[in-house]
């Protein structure tokens, strides 16, 4: 079965340059991905999904129905969306009673959830095509030390995500290696970036981020890479504020893994919209030139 993008909210609405890098590299490795119209918020597993479980299931199931109708698997560009959609599928596929209840709700909009499509995080698909990526590398990102941040919803809950090791993940580092860069080991690699708790308490969110940045700095990283737009925003948008509050001097450029791969594949930087990054990436581009 072919794949279509589930874009979510944050990437198309705030960080479209991340979407551009993803589309360019999937084209480049010859992996065809279509577009699915009429999707809603997944819904956000750290936000609206926390308010009412029934609505979480209904909204998620409606999105899944759209892909069932067009007969496509989901390729999600966001870890949060991936977790939400995989969770809804897991619950409805394993609980007939719940599935009946939700289908009764979906009936008002003329839809029925069946459960016959698959959901994948984009990095999962990249990892499955890692040999193809390596073959196509034109400009290896030599001597670039990258702190990979796998993030939470990419991995956990493992029972539902059913993918990389939830406490000792390897796939992101292997993707970093595929670009020719060096993944750095750092103490808090597996920790949350702090973004989700910003909705309730910004100080806590920034404190978590600061611990993480400190750990990356101690490990000698040149830049950060991640696979989720919430993590991306946390790292790229908040380092300046961290420096003011904690009297620090963090200045890590932040890349989506699709951007690092795009650079290694020799895709024109103009087409990637890298000038949209808040922490400027020029020094890194010079380093790898």
């Amino acid at each position, binding site marked *: 079965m072919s794949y279509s993008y589930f*874009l979510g*909210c*944050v990437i*198309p*609405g*705030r960080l*479209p*340059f991340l*979407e*551009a890098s993803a*589309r360019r590299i999937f084209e480049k490795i010859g992996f065809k991905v279509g*577009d699915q*119209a*009429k*999707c*809603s*918020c997944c*819904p*956000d*597993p*750290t*936000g*609206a*999904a*926390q*308010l*009412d*479980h*029934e*609505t979480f299931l*209904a*909204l998620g199931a*409606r999105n899944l129905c759209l892909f069932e109708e067009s007969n496509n698997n989901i390729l999600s560009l966001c870890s949060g969306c991936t977790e939400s959609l995989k969770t809804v599928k897991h619950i409805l596929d394993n609980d007939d009673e719940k599935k009946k209840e939700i289908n009764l*709700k*979906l009936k*008002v*909009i003329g839809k029925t959830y069946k459960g016959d499509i698959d959901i994948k995080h984009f990095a999962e698909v990249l990892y499955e095509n890692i040999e193809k990526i390596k073959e196509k590398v034109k400009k290896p990102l030599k001597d670039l030390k990258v702190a990979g941040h796998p993030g*939470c*919803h990419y991995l*956990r*809950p*493992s029972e539902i995500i059913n993918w990389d090791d*939830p*406490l000792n993940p390897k796939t992101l580092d292997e993707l970093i290696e595929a670009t020719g860069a060096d993944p750095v080991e750092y103490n808090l690699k*597996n*920790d*949350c970036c*702090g973004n*989700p*708790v*910003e*909705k*309730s*308490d910004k100080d*806590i*969110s920034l404190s*978590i981020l600061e*611990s993480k940045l400190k750990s990356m700095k101690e490990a000698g990283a040149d830049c950060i890479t991640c696979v989720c737009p919430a993590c991306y925003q946390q790292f790229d948008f908040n380092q300046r504020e961290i420096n003011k509050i904690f009297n620090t001097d963090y200045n890590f450029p932040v890349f989506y893994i699709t951007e690092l791969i795009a650079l290694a594949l020799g895709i024109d930087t103009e*087409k990637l*919209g890298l000038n949209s990054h808040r922490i400027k990436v020029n020094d890194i581009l010079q380093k790898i030139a």
Partner: protein
Amino acid sequence: MQMVDFEFRNELIKEDFSLNYCYQCGTCSSSCPVAFVTKGEFNPRKIIEQSLLGLKDQKPNVWLCCTCQMCVEECPQKVFLTEIFEKIKNKIVLLGEPYPKTFKMQAKSIIENGLAIPLTQPIIRRRDQLGLPKVESANIKELKKLLDATDFEKKIKIHEVSK
């Protein structure tokens, strides 16, 4: 004075039976990044203890869970803490107790736009410049029908002013 409400505990157990398995070892709190930076002020073990005891008035900081699921992975008893916290949040919302307004703002945006972050004109132009396709969002009327079927607006008290 603490109110003990076994009904609260029983409802939670009915929704997530794994609550029963907790033997209070504290592994969850030692793996929690929020517990770490708040020096234990946020304490997932304690929230589970209070839930087991049915101390329903003691659920002040469940919204500080960052949903990272580290506790769930590390729990030797396979207690689904993040999911239990989600059920507690659902109950707080349903009871009409205050909850952080950012959550309501996001829900409002989904009701009105179908998306947590609506597409603005500058972003639509930027998408064009980057050669990205037009995003065709969900039909709001259709979504509204579905959200009415789950009684979403009423459950989350969408029209009440939150602090």
